[in-house]
């Protein structure tokens, strides 16, 4: 057990994901959605660091392959061929996940409320000539897309829900963006003492690897809460896995939710969840 704890004793993720937040413009805020203006400003300022593997978002770079493998596995389980399917990445930030999903073969729309992040994402994907036409970005919120009536074969929102003002409403928008029967994948951080240690205290105050104030422990979301929010708007949970960093290899691994009789032992900090919208 100590080993397990130590394995996580380095910040598993810590870093924030693209602020699901309003743009600085008052117009967007007026829509009264789930977004939080302070968060948008925060990620806008950090946007230049999105693609630095040593910067504020380095843990996201580490986590990304594991998150995308999880999503690829869910698509395979549901018999969805990524080629020819559409996906939306809500709160795409600099486009780390959107590009990776594009490489799986999906047509991806990345949206983020922070204009600066979307600018970075656009510039970065333009450097990849094999991806540029499969991945597009917009400054938008989930609610905006819902109002436009957009639906997708996959809805992903990774490391975002812990940054929004109204998680329940945010989750509802995610579900409305999914085609009936389509998967919704959300990753975030559990509200536990361990998560405070690994995702706030260590990275922000001890190691200084993540800017202070990136995460607010009070806004972390336990998996059971997330499952309930999803179920309330018509999406049943398919799978929940923990995301654990191996500090020796700096690689991130998917772990089971439960460890034998220890319920939720694997999802004490970062986790990823897939649900399916009822048909």
């Amino acid at each position, binding site marked *: 057990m100590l080993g397990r704890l130590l394995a996580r004793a380095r910040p598993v993720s810590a870093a924030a994901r693209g602020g699901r937040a309003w743009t600085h413009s008052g117009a967007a805020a007026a829509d009264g959605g789930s977004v939080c203006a302070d968060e948008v400003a925060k990620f806008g300022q950090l946007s230049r660091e999105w693609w630095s593997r040593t910067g504020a978002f380095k843990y996201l770079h580490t986590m990304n392959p594991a998150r995308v493998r999880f999503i690829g596995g869910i698509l395979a389980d549901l018999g969805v061929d990524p080629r020819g399917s559409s996906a939306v990445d809500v709160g795409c930030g600099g486009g780390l996940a959107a590009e990776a999903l594009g490489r799986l073969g999906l047509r991806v729309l990345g949206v983020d409320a922070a204009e600066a992040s979307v600018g970075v994402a656009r510039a970065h994907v*333009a450097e990849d000539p094999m991806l540029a036409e499969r991945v597009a970005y917009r400054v938008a919120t989930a609610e905006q897309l819902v109002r436009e009536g957009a639906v997708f074969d996959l809805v992903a929102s990774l490391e975002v829900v812990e940054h929004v003002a109204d998680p329940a409403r945010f989750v509802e928008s995610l579900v409305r963006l999914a085609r009936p029967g389509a998967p919704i994948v959300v990753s975030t951080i559990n509200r536990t003492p361990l998560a405070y240690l690994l995702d706030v205290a260590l990275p922000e105050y001890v190691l200084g690897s993540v800017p202070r104030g990136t995460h607010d422990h009070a806004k972390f979301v336990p998996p059971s809460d997330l499952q309930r929010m999803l179920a309330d708007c018509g999406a049943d949970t398919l799978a929940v896995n923990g995301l654990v960093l191996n500090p020796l290899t700096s690689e991130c691994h998917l772990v089971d939710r439960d460890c034998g009789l220890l319920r939720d032992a694997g999802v004490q900090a970062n986790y990823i969840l897939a649900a399916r919208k009822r048909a």
Partner: protein
Amino acid sequence: MRRAVLSPLRTVSWRTLDRAGGWRRRLATQAAPELYDVVVVGGGPAGCALAGALGSLGGKRIALVDSGKLGDTRQWEPPGDTYLPRALQITEGNKEYLARLGLWDQCYLDRIQAYSRAVVTDALGGGAIDLGAEETAAYMTETKNLVGGMLRAIDGRRNVSVVERARVTGIERAPATAAGWPVVTLANGQRLQARLLVGADGASSRVRKFAGIDTYGSEYAQYGLVATLCLEELNRTAFQRFLPSGPVALLPFPGGFANLVWSLDAEMFQLLRAAPEAVFAGLVNAAFRLAPAELRYIYDLLRDGADEATLNAEIEWRLDVFAKSAAAAATAKLPPRVAAITPKSRTSFPLRLRMVDSLVADRVALVGDAGHLVHPLAGQGLNMGLEDVRCLATHLELAAAGGEDLGAPAVLERYNRERYARTLAMQGIIDKVWRVFGARAAPVAALRSAAMDGLDRLPALKDRLIGAFMS
């Protein structure tokens, strides 16, 4: 949507370049390069194996580029009465890997000899070691048979394009729009742009030069003389004898044929390559049986231009004496006698030790001889190359599943971390063996032969040795 933003940019840059006068015509005919996830330069065994392995990455576009006539190799019809001298020894582990990829079964399997026993002897000290394993330890195959089979298997993979008879005339970094992806220009005018460029183009790799990866190492001042031998008996054992002039190896082919690999210095190489074919067969028999002083005497006769009959009589007489001696009693340690060599089968290659600073650079990875050259005395050259292929393919598969950019530094660094040190270690071991066996001083010779005899009596240690080289 991205297109709409990009195309005006392109127009602007073209117009600017048009004004540069001299470039105008070239640009006008130059279409945008074809885009690939991975471009493998070099259609040898390592390049083909990698293309075959990556053929299972659904949705990834792979190109295999070679200057040679791969089509001829693909349609090669093996001669019924001999084997080609260019041959490879493949370990059981690597054969299994190729079989899993579906690259092995397309070869002419009846032309591949599985063997489990290797006998290594030392001419100077008289030591011997008999490396016998229960199961098949390695396979001897003609290079063309293996590559042809792999090419036929690759034909069935829709995501792999094979571009043959296309010499690489230039490699450059793309302009900033594609984040410096390498662009390979071919003699036929085709231009391929790659997320990841793999150099499987051998010892004098162009890809390695383009990437600016430095090499260092030493010349062994030796040449490898290879030939196809016809034996008097069927044989399923590999034999190697360390002579003062360098190691000589006889490796089994089916039907009583064998592959000869003889390492020689430049002068001896010239001498033996020019020797009449009928004499050459006798020279091989002598090399595995006679004492160094006797061999020296025969080589002196050859050097002095003795005629064929004299040479043959001299060799036959000495072999007769040997056959009646006590040393010949240990027949199990001797290869069957060579009856003849396949006419005109003698060919050669230089022997070098070459190491690289790194197996990777920006969007570039090296596999096979491009990344390491070793002395063929342990038959490890291609086996190290196939280990590279296996390692790189595994990391690329994982990266693809995680949506990673296959040419990203993080991905390539995983390959380099795993392979670089192991490659250097293997090169070091083979070089040490070479140096220990290259020594002619009597005490060294006595010591190494004692060590071989000692090792021969320690089965556990012997098994580990076999394991280290064979699997």
